[in-house]
């Protein structure tokens, strides 16, 4: 298996894990509002791992964005950005919403 095939397989698996986690959250009504901070303050941003911080920083600066918008800024693959954004959604820092066929992300509003 060459590098591209391996990368594609990893991305496919990441996407599939993301979808399953999202489904679990919806099915079991897991609300973590009491456990996670709402919004994303700069000190929390600094404490994020590098890959998530880059994505979150780009989202803060860019405002409402798709994974593709952010991938252009961070020079990563769309699927990778999508995975990172979904992690930030699960952590309670980012809100995800659908408009037509597109999925958008924005920093969770706290007020």
């Amino acid at each position, binding site marked *: 298996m060459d590098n591209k095939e391996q990368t594609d397989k990893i991305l496919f698996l990441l996407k599939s894990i993301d979808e399953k986690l999202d489904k679990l959250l919806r099915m079991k009504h897991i609300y973590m509002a009491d456990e996670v901070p709402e*919004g994303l303050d700069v000190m929390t941003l600094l404490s994020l791992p590098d890959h998530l911080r880059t994505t979150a920083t780009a989202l*803060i600066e860019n405002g409402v964005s798709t994974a593709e918008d952010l991938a252009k800024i961070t020079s990563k693959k769309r699927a990778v950005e999508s995975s990172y954004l979904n992690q930030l959604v699960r952590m309670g820092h980012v809100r995800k919403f659908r408009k037509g066929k597109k999925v958008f992300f924005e920093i969770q509003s706290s*007020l």
Partner: protein
Amino acid sequence: MSFSISIHSSKGGTGKTCIAQNLAYAYAMDGKNVCLLDLDLKSPSLFSGLFPVKDCWLNSVLEGRQEIDDVLVDATREMGTKGRVCVGYSNPDIAEIREISLKDRRWQSQALQKLIDCKKKLFSSGFDVVIMDSSPGVDYTSVNVVACSEYVITVFKSGESRGVQLVINGIYKPLEKRCFAIENMNNGVSSFSFEDQIPVPVLARIPCMCDVSKYGTKKLFTCEDPAHPFSKAIFNLKDQIC
């Protein structure tokens, strides 16, 4: 292309405000439209009364009660610059300063978003350079300002390089900022030993000068005395940034 610069330091009393206001004037003399913001919310300087003031504050913008355009003061006529100069102030009222100290992380998260929105609005309304004078040290009020700017200038005094390295490695780099350093009040001895070199360009080593210490923020050297060594250092700094 428009850009914003935050002037920050790991400690107070390094001359940030003096550099911010002189740099603002230097850019405006070049024909750039400049917005100078006093974002030292815990210790507002009011830029020592060098620019006109009105009873409107940046605090209200961060609270979402007013828009950035409503609180800016146009100082172009008083300054006589080629470009436009507008100034925004933090509220010096002690009750407001106490209030800022009590803000929680949710509010600070909103404040960061408001700052970014303000910056974008200023760019879209024709400002070329936004200079933000921040609080010293590491807290929400200062790091929010750093986070929303394109460039960070960290100002330090001779012999205080350790704090500089901490903020560069712990704040600016993780936020992926383009960072420069200025050694102010240099006493002729470099603050950095060979092992201590920092990985950001030191754009200026401004010598300690009695008249700069005497007048501090109360005199706009770049305006009143452009041939002064301090003014020359600021003009040179401006040319190196952009």
